[in-house]
């Protein structure tokens, strides 16, 4: 499906913080000049077409418990595939990307506790014989990200 103007207006408006209240869609439907049922049907269609992934709360992963740390490695080209296999075999490695830089492997460690981050990073260094640079989050800045629909 291709979103029409009303779908786009919905997408733009619903990226704002929506108050947590019994009938969250009513005021927005009124504002957009459509019925609540129509708004919900459109959301359902956009979800089926994977234009949206969901409508709901965005949770702070760290607030739910657990520790996270962005890490980077400089992997020699001729060892790259071997190191990928070793690094990815750790269940604590959540995302891993090859990036265009001297530090060419970037991944996120996700563990139960802060101490586990250090333990896993040290195991990775032992397994690969390479340094694992740790870039923990010191401060998070307000995110204004919006997709113009």
């Amino acid at each position, binding site marked *: 499906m291709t979103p029409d103007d009303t779908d786009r207006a*919905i997408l733009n408006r*619903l*990226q*704002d*913080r*929506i*108050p*947590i*209240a*019994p*009938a*969250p*869609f009513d005021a927005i439907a009124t504002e957009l000049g459509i019925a609540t049922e129509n708004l*919900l049907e459109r*959301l359902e269609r956009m979800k089926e077409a*994977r*234009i*949206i992934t*969901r*409508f*709901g*709360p*965005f*949770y*702070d*992963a760290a*607030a*739910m*418990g657990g520790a996270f740390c962005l890490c*980077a490695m*400089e992997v020699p080209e001729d060892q790259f595939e071997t190191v*990928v296999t070793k*690094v*990815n075999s750790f269940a604590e490695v*959540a*995302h*891993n990307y*090859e*990036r*265009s830089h001297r*530090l060419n*492997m*970037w*991944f996120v460690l*996700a563990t139960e506790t802060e101490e586990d981050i250090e333990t896993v990073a040290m195991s990775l260094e032992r397994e690969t014989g390479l340094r694992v*640079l740790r870039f*923990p*989050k*010191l*401060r*998070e*800045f*307000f*995110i*204004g*990200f*919006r*997709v*113009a*629909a």
Partner: protein
Amino acid sequence: MSIDSTDRAIIAATQAGLPLVPHPYASVAADLGLSEAALIERMQDMQERRIIRRVAVAPNHYALGMTANGMSVWDVEDARIADLGPQVGALEFVSHCYERPRSLPDWPYNLFAMIHGASRDEVEEKRAAIAALLGQACRNSDILYSSRILKKTGLRLRSKEG
């Protein structure tokens, strides 16, 4: 930040999204054996504690044409980062914005901002806009494009008691 077993049940029931019905909180509350008012109060409280960042739609930015992204990194004067970091994070094309430690001498950058756009050229234009915003407070910068996804696992709440 602490969450109890009720909060945990609420998170598990809602992290994949709310039902698209006129009264979504009433529907979730019924599943959890809570009153609608109690659920709303709990979720408002989690929002105040910043466990919930916001309730909103999550657009699939790839489907909407934002197919390029780059991890821009900046060496910002320590004395200015508290002031400049939030300004970079507030830009509409920045999806993640963090202060992280430098790792000298390998890595002089302390501000990370993920930039999204319709094309590599657009990402570069946006990167230039951040450079202009940071001005003299930024000594050096770079951008890292991903050439391959090596692993991608969703971060989901583990189902454990309490």
